[in-house]
């Protein structure tokens, strides 16, 4: 089943410079899809459209086989969670527990059930000890973990990360990455759409979508996408370490078999 189906999506914040200019893609259930591209390429606009925050777009957008329109927005939003870039600007509650509860309150989850749900997702994101802490006493990474807990508490089918780690330090980034991989292991049906600058993260995705100038520039598995080194370099995007090294070795006349894709495999091959 396709969780997301976008056809010919176009959108402009102001009339003379379109942010999106005919993007088509689909996301299968349970996949981890990375959207990469430069700032201003339109990739964050995609997230906003999917969340129903923008309305004047053209093209068709379907989530869970429902056309995104006024009548369906509430239904769709109840199945989609999003984590934004700025840790402070999505922390609504006055404490960690209150913030996780915010979404539950909006969905009218009975008061009696809240405490156990909050505790469950706080522990999944490693925030159990911090339930009564106020946001100003938390690090950026911890705030983002709270945001994830708040999203997971809603039991979403699709989670969008809109550059959720861009403002974090390496430790915060690693913590979030660990939580995301745990999420996927625990719920294989969970679909993840990650908008990112990090090509190494994209290399571990199931599928990569490269957006440039409001258009889908490349699309496919990481191996397919990152084999287009020249095209990516032409829009000044880097390729991940492993394909980069393999290409460099080839350039210097040392060939590596096609089936070697991961760091471990490359190490093993070289050690033979």
């Amino acid at each position: 089943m396709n969780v997301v189906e976008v056809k010919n999506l176009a959108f402009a914040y102001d009339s003379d410079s379109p942010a999106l200019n005919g993007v088509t893609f689909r996301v299968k259930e349970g996949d981890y899809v990375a959207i990469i591209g430069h700032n201003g390429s339109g990739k964050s606009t995609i997230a906003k459209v999917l969340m129903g925050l923008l309305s004047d777009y053209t093209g068709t957008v379907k989530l869970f086989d429902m056309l995104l329109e006024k009548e369906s927005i509430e239904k769709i939003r109840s199945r989609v969670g999003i984590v934004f870039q700025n840790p402070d600007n999505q922390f609504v509650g006055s404490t960690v527990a209150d913030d996780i509860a915010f979404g539950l309150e909006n969905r009218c989850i009975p008061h009696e059930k809240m405490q156990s749900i909050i505790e469950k997702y706080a522990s999944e994101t490693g925030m159990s000890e911090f339930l009564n802490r106020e946001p100003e006493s938390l690090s950026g990474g911890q705030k983002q973990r709270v945001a994830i807990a708040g999203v997971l508490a809603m039991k979403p089918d699709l989670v969008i990360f809109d550059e959720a780690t861009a403002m974090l330090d390496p430790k915060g980034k690693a913590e979030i990455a660990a939580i995301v991989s745990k999420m996927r292991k625990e719920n294989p049906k969970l679909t993840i759409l990650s908008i990112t600058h990090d090509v190494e993260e994209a290399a571990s995705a199931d599928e990569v979508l490269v957006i440039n100038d409001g258009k889908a520039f490349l699309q496919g598995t990481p191996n397919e996408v990152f084999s287009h080194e020249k095209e990516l370099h032409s829009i000044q995007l880097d390729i991940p370490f492993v394909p980069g090294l393999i290409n460099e070795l080839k350039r210097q006349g040392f060939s590596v078999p096609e089936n070697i894709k991961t760091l471990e495999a490359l190490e093993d091959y070289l050690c033979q």
Partner: protein
Amino acid sequence: MTFTLGKYVPYNSPVHKLDPRLKILATILLMVCVFMNYGSWAMTFTMEAIIFVIAAVLLYMTRTRITTILRSLKSLWMVIIFLLLIYAIMPTNNPTFPIAFRVEAWNWTVYWDSFLQAGKILLRLIMMIELTMILTSSTKPLDLTFALEWYMTPLKVIHFPAHEIAMTISIALRFIPTILEDTTRVMKAQESRGVSFTHGKLSRRIAALTSLIIPLFVSAFMRSDELANAMECRGYDPRGKRTRYRMLKWHWYDFLCLFLVVALATAFIWVAVDPRFSSFLKFPLEVH
């Protein structure tokens, strides 16, 4: 004039545990008691003294530091002098005490009443501060907001946006530390660009202030924009039905306190209204 009206002090005192709705009601009732007239001077000061003692005990229970109280009173010095002056200059209509002193040349008589009057006003002010301090130092701002929302609920019938107001206040409270952080950051950044916030000519100072305020506004608007998006994505609808994580709950001790406070207020009102009490107590020289 700025009073330092006690910041919330996290502490597990019996006063902290009380329901914020009760605390608001109790504060209002006690303030009414403070501001009523009880007839003779002796009566008035006795009644005020009773509330003063109650407030002092409550303050002690909330572990408010004496220094905090003194600091909030420090700004009152000006008021004291001002009050004394005003009451000394103003003619006393029904003096109940003999003349304190008289300046023949100006035909100016000052009665002891003027000092008592100033003292009464001062005492009332102090008690108002004390009572507010008990409320704010023992109640989280957010709980106060919830309590206010609860009191405003009946107004929803006339489409008064009680919930929206409460949500706005709680978000404002949540973002105060964030905006303060922004302020320090922008100030440091502008100081690095040669701005001085403390020295310089007026025109330079104004430029300094603009260089602080505009970035703060820009960042606050950006934050509110992103926050609104985040809230919408998390299913927030200001008009929609919501459940509550934080519920205000009445306990047996809330009922007990409610009873005590109402009883006290009733007693005080009775004393104030019933003429039999108006000169029950008298200072030796007082005539009435």
